């Protein structure tokens, strides 16, 4: 039977890094507060007898946000066998406040003094033996990042050689006397009294959670102390704790005067009130330039060649038939050579391989995007942007804390939506959940990359950047609308620490990029594979299940896809999209768009299966039903906008349903997003339609 060990500490103290170091697991780590929004569990190395539970960061056991409630509930009610209190050595004073509360619990506590490496660089020296003496707790100096002290910590926990039952002298005599009095009167049968020391302090503070333990005689005495101190009981306790912590810090630590740090110098540039936003736009532009237009697109051509062949690459590598011809054509030809029918070869080549490969082609671009974002996060830059944007967001009714879910949402909307739990105010939290899907997630990148590089070959990255900026503008306008109509309470302030700039940890960056890429590939191999098979059946057969696909594998003009099942479904819906598609009646584009509800990657995959062409040709080949996009950049842009701003995929919708807590709220959000998507794409489409003379093409 395993014992439970809790990992508790302030936000951004390095809990998840320590969790990974102690368990050997790969939980997501970030250089910003609030990465952990749900508790995580894993076994401490060396056996399965100690289960470590990672908890969201808290500054005290008086919770304000929902994830802080998780930590408080864990400490007070789950009764762990031991708590590892991780404290940031570079912010000792702030960290020790929580320690004073944990020391009052009935659970044993071991203090892990983290960031020992950074502490020395910052000119801070801490005498951990003296600190241990002052706190009455075992203190172990560690660096979760470099692994220093981790084995000592594991040994101490396993051998149970830590100090127990600390007796801290935090409070003044009269306050302590009253607390002791309350403790003596506690009804030990009540659940709340299972941590008597902590509970008596809470009764003194009049914490509503401990109301059942208070009585009238206590109340009179507390009132008398309040009168004497001239402040309320909660303030008295907080003041006493801070005085104690200040004393401990003065006795144990010494800070050498240091010259202006690199962080201070960089902050003067990145947090300059005039330069911060332009710099952010330039940095994001560079990220999209590298991922969409430069490195990513070069690598994508090779991936596409592997699946579908490439004439350019076959000239360079004419001795590698696999790369010259591509997996799809090789399999298609092989089936035909064995005597198989065209439909069987078409299913493999133009259905499965084309569908799955159209998504896989964008993997290199995604890897570069994930890498850039991960480096920015790990360096501490994103946290500063959150801090800066808070000033702008606040004017429009959003909390700066919303920026964290938005940044996370650039990878995938699901963790972004869940990350909204870090926003304290319920109104702001709901607004954040509703607005996060507007941020272009990685699944939408194939749509952006496909059309921006084909329709705007020389400025593909600029298109990507423009939709990102457009997304932020939509979020701000939506926030104003929501605030005026539904959420009328005042906005709260964003209080967050700014971590030092640091070189991103290579291991963490690797883990993050790997996890996100693997998850993308997993979707391509599962959801997209299934959808490709389904779309192939729907486009190659009529309602009477007659084959209407190509009769010649190399001439897709022999197909009669317009009488397929999918065509008959799309033909009705396509009327609705005529304004958005700039006067073009295109059922092919319409059904591809609607499939984005299953997964946004499926939009490109569906276009590939319907056209029977790979990503390089599906828009540029004159035989493709999407050819009109190449000569109508505005329609292409309208198509990008609709797919980006319409309702997200099923996964994100499920997360929204869970976090919003009601189906009604979910459907109103979907309606709101569809209105935005249809409105914007129709405005762009109508401009294009007007320029082309208002004739409906393709009916």
């Amino acid at each position: 039977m395993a014992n439970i060990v809790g990992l508790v500490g302030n936000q951004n103290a390095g809990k998840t890094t320590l969790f990974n170091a102690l368990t050997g697991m790969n939980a997501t780590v970030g250089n910003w507060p609030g990465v952990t929004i749900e508790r995580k569990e894993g076994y401490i190395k060396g056996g399965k007898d100690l289960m470590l539970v990672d908890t969201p960061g808290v500054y005290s056991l008086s919770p304000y946000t929902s994830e802080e409630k998780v930590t408080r509930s864990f400490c007070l009610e789950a009764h762990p066998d031991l708590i590892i209190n991780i404290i940031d050595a570079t912010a000792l004073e702030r960290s020790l406040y929580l320690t004073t509360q944990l020391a009052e619990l009935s659970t044993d506590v071991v203090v892990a003094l983290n960031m020992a490496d950074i502490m020395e660089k910052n000119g801070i020296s801490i005498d951990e033996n003296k600190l241990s003496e002052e706190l009455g707790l075992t203190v172990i100096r560690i660096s979760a990042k470099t692994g220093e002290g981790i084995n000592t910590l594991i040994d101490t926990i396993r051998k149970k050689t830590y100090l127990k039952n600390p007796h801290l002298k935090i409070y003044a005599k009269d306050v302590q006397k009253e607390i002791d009095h309350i403790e003596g009167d506690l009804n030990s049968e009540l659940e709340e009294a299972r941590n008597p020391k902590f509970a008596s302090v809470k009764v003194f503070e009049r914490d509503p959670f401990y109301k059942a333990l208070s009585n009238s005689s206590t109340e009179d005495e507390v009132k008398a102390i309040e009168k004497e101190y001239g402040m309320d009981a909660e303030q008295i306790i907080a003041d006493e704790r801070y005085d104690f912590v200040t004393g401990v810090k003065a006795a144990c630590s010494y800070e050498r005067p240091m010259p202006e740090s690199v962080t201070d110098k960089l902050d003067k540039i990145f947090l300059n009130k005039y330069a911060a936003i332009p710099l952010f736009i330039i940095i994001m532009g560079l990220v999209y330039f590298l991922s969409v237009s430069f490195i990513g697109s070069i690598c994508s051509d090779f991936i596409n060649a592997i699946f579908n062949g490439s004439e350019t690459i076959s000239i360079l590598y004419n001795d590698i038939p696999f790369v010259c011809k591509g997996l799809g054509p090789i399999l298609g030809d092989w089936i035909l050579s064995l005597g198989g029918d065209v439909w069987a070869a078409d299913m493999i080549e133009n259905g499965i391989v084309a569908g799955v490969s159209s998504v896989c082609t964008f993997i290199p671009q995604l890897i570069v995007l994930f890498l850039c974002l991960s480096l920015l996060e790990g360096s501490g830059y994103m946290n500063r942007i959150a801090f800066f944007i808070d000033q702008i967001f606040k004017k429009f009714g959003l909390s700066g804390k919303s920026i964290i879910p938005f940044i996370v949402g650039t990878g995938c909307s699901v963790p972004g939506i869940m990350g909204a739990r870090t926003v304290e105010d319920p109104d702001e939290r709901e607004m954040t959940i509703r607005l996060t899907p507007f941020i272009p997630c990685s699944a939408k990148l194939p749509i952006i990359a496909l059309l921006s590089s084909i329709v705007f070959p020389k400025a593909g990255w600029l298109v990507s950047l423009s939709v990102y900026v457009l997304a932020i503008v939509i979020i701000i306008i939506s926030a104003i609308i929501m605030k005026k109509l539904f959420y009328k309470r005042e906005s709260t302030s964003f209080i967050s620490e700014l971590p030092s700039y640091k070189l991103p940890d290579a291991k963490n960056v690797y883990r993050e990029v790997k996890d996100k890429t693997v998850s993308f590939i997993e979707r391509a191999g599962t959801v997209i594979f299934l959808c490709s098979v389904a779309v192939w059946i729907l486009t190659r057969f009529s309602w009477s299940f007659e084959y209407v696909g190509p009769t010649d594998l190399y001439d897709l003009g022999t197909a009669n896809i317009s009488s397929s099942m999918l065509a008959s479904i799309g033909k009705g819906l396509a009327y609705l999209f005529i304004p958005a598609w700039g006067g073009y009646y295109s059922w092919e584009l319409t059904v591809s768009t609607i499939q984005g509800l299953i997964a946004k990657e499926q939009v490109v995959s569906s276009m590939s299966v319907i056209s029977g062409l790979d990503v390089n040709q599906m828009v540029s080949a004159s035989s493709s039903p999407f050819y009109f996009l190449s000569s109508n950049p505005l329609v292409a842009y309208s198509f990008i906008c609709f797919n980006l701003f319409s309702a997200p995929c099923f996964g994100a919708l499920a997360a929204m349903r869970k976090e919003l807590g009601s189906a009604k709220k979910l459907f109103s959000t979907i309606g709101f997003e569809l209105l935005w998507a249809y409105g914007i794409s129709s405005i762009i489409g109508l401009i294009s339609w007007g320029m082309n003379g208002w004739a409906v093409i393709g009916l």
Partner: protein
Amino acid sequence: MNWVDFWVVVIVVILVGLVIFFHYIFPHLRKGPSTKAKRLVKDYFKAKKKEEK
């Protein structure tokens, strides 16, 4: 439909079945916590969630 077409269809159907089973069904069939500690934590948060609702 000749035997080549038949085998192509069989392979695709098997692949579809495997994806559906391992991606959608199998994760739900796997049993949860095996140790008392895991169960304790899980039960606790389940009860807490209910209470909060």
